[in-house]
């Protein structure tokens, strides 16, 4: 086992799989922490989960489209209008825009966990610039290199068709009917933590990896890129840039990463942007509580995937409950991602609880509380021995003309004993995820 682990570490170095951590000055690339024991999910179970994911993503897209066009869900009294339009994720600039197929969140990364009943629960939806998919694919490559024998006994669903599916999705939102539309991946640049993934996906799709300065919007409100053969019109931008940096004419004026005029071009329907600006409005931990109701409202269906019970501190009653039970709950800020700024009640000190209690009282609208789940664990190789560690799962759902869900997803595992935080920027690792066909 240890020998395999050493082989895996060497392979990671050779393949140059890395991610970057912002705070570590100087040494910006870190090798990817990979655990060689794969995580298994039965195919039959996965089929149910992926139906649930497709359903959820469809409803979220309907919701975003509704919020910017017509706002039926407010009128029906299902989601409070104030909760949405007061959120910093709501972009008035996107009102009355209908992107092709009504699709806003084209790439959705959903974080799932298993609770003590063994059910998959949705922990959060990432609709802005979800990352991690390239690691899902690289993890499979690593497993094939390091433990090829294991594949002999299992029928494992492949994962490397993602880039092709992503390409199809992006083509489907192209405004032009060119047979090979010009698709680019827009990256903030080499210093972004997910640059490796941006380069990977661009390469796999045969698309150009561009930075904001490579693009410009002409007087005709079309988007162009500078190439050695002159300017070329761009049809679809897969942006891996947060939307506040996308267009200094509309959002942050000081952004040098974006493209001035991009929103103009997008609103006129001259370029497809994935994920669409404004999609983040549904990626808010306060909105999360309403997703089951959205599914019932828009699709007239019962949700196939369960969510975690969520207490919105903005409601006085629930605030009181959260304050009384803070040592049992996980407290999350509504607008943060990456596992930053949260409090895990049962693992916290009295001082930390006091600090959060004060924060919540001052700005209740910024916090939610959820019960601490007893998350499932899997065998993981730690210092030469096998030990149980907590984990989650991030499958990716693509949504353009069609909807498609990855087979499995990225499994992240907390390498510290007892820890529930799996983010790679905070010392998490990852595993290959196998959706296996079970013999009848």
């Amino acid at each position, binding site marked *: 086992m240890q020998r395999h682990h050493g082989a895996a570490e060497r392979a990671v170095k*050779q393949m*140059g799989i890395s991610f970057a951590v912002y705070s570590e000055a100087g040494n910006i690339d870190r090798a990817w922490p990979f655990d060689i024991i794969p995580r298994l999910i039965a195919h039959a179970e996965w089929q149910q989960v992926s139906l649930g994911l497709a359903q959820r993503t469809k409803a979220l897209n309907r919701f975003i489209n509704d919020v910017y066009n017509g706002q039926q869900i407010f009128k029906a009294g299902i989601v409070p209008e104030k909760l949405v339009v007061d959120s910093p994720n709501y972009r008035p600039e996107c009102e009355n825009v209908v992107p092709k197929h009504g699709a806003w969140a084209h790439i959705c990364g959903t974080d799932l966990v298993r609770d003590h009943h063994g059910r998959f629960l949705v922990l959060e939806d990432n609709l802005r610039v979800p990352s991690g998919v390239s690691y899902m694919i690289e993890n499979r490559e690593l497993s094939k290199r390091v433990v090829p024998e294991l594949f002999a006994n299992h029928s494992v669903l492949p994962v490397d068709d993602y880039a092709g599916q992503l390409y199809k999705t992006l083509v489907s939102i192209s405004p032009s009917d060119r047979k090979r539309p010009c698709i680019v991946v827009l990256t903030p*640049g*080499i210093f972004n933590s997910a640059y490796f993934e941006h*380069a990977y996906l*661009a*390469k796999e799709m045969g698309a*150009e*990896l*561009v*930075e904001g*300065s*490579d693009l*410009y919007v002409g007087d005709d409100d079309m988007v*162009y*890129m*500078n*190439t*050695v*053969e*002159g*300017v070329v019109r761009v049809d679809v931008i897969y942006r891996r840039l947060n939307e506040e940096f996308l267009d200094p004419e509309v959002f942050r004026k000081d952004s040098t990463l974006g493209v*001035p005029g991009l929103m103009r071009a997008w609103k006129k329907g001259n370029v497809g942007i994935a994920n669409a600006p404004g999609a983040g409005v549904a990626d808010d931990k306060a909105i999360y509580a309403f997703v089951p109701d959205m599914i019932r409202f828009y699709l007239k269906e019962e949700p196939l995937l369960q969510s975690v019970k969520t207490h919105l501190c903005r409601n006085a009653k629930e605030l009181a409950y959260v304050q009384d039970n803070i040592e049992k709950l996980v407290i999350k800020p509504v607008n943060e991602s990456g596992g930053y700024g949260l409090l895990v009640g049962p693992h916290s000190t009295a001082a930390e609880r006091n600090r959060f209690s004060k924060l919540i009282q001052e700005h209740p609208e910024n916090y939610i509380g959820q019960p601490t789940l007893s998350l499932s664990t899997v065998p993981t190789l730690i210092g030469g021995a096998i030990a149980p560690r907590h984990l989650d799962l991030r499958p990716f759902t693509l949504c353009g003309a069609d909807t498609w869900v990855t087979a499995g997803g990225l499994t992240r595992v907390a390498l510290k004993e007892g820890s529930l935080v799996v983010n790679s920027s905070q010392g998490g690792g990852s595993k290959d995820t196998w959706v296996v066909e079970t013999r009848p």
Partner: protein
Amino acid sequence: MLSRVAENIYWMARYLERTESTARLVRSYNHLIMDIPLGSEPPWTVLVDILNAREEFNSVFRRESEKNVHLLLASRPTSTCSIPYAINRVRENLRVTRDVLPDDTWEKVNQLHLFSLDHAESVASRRNRLLFLEQVIDHCQSIVGLIEGAVQRDHAYRFMRVGQLIERADMTARVVDVGAGDILDREGAFGSIDPLLWGALLESLSGTTAYRRQVGPIIEKDSFVDFVFKTDDFPRSIYFCLSEIRRELNHLPVAGPTLTQIDSTRRRLRRFSSQKRERTKLHRFIDGLLQSFIELDEQLQAHWFKKRPRD
């Protein structure tokens, strides 16, 4: 291909060539000095002058010693004329264009980078210095070989090749300039070591074998200069470099004005004859050549690397 990527690729190749040619030049000069009787050797600072780094040298060091010259050229990553600096630039330019070149390129460049970090300090002693230079040259050649053998002949390759060739022509011109008197033979003091000098310079351009086969075993100023300026089949001659650049640029759109400029430099070279020039006039001719390389670089910037209206 993106203009930004083209520009990065071009500089990657220029700095890779600069790394190798600087190492080669320093190595040859070390060999030369060892051949010359004690007391009559030319100063080490000739190297600094060839690389146009006099100002930088004076800002860092006070004594013009052998050790200081090598510290500047081989050990200081902050000096723009140094080998570690050039290696860093190769790496930084490649880092942002990794997806264009074969994966092994990045690995090999990284190895070179790590090697220079570990060993650049060792150049004070002659033995370690020569070993270091040898290894740097080896690394560079294996990277160039990898690129030659595996890169698709598309625009990326073209800009890489153009960068390599401009840098090469530029270095050849500078090397000849050492012999052009203005740098070395101001008072005619080194007349007696002439053949050794020309031999070492030819060696630094790895042209000894080719020269012997084409011209003969005796290396003299005029035939040397004509050889490295005008030969159309020696890969480090200026004429050859210009012809190759022309061939590569011919595949690109709007190349017209640049090709015309290259043609005029090539005509000047064809008409040139070393015999008719004294050393000072040779120096002026070389200045003209260096100027034309700068103009060529400006043409590349203007036609293919330029940024659109927003800047």
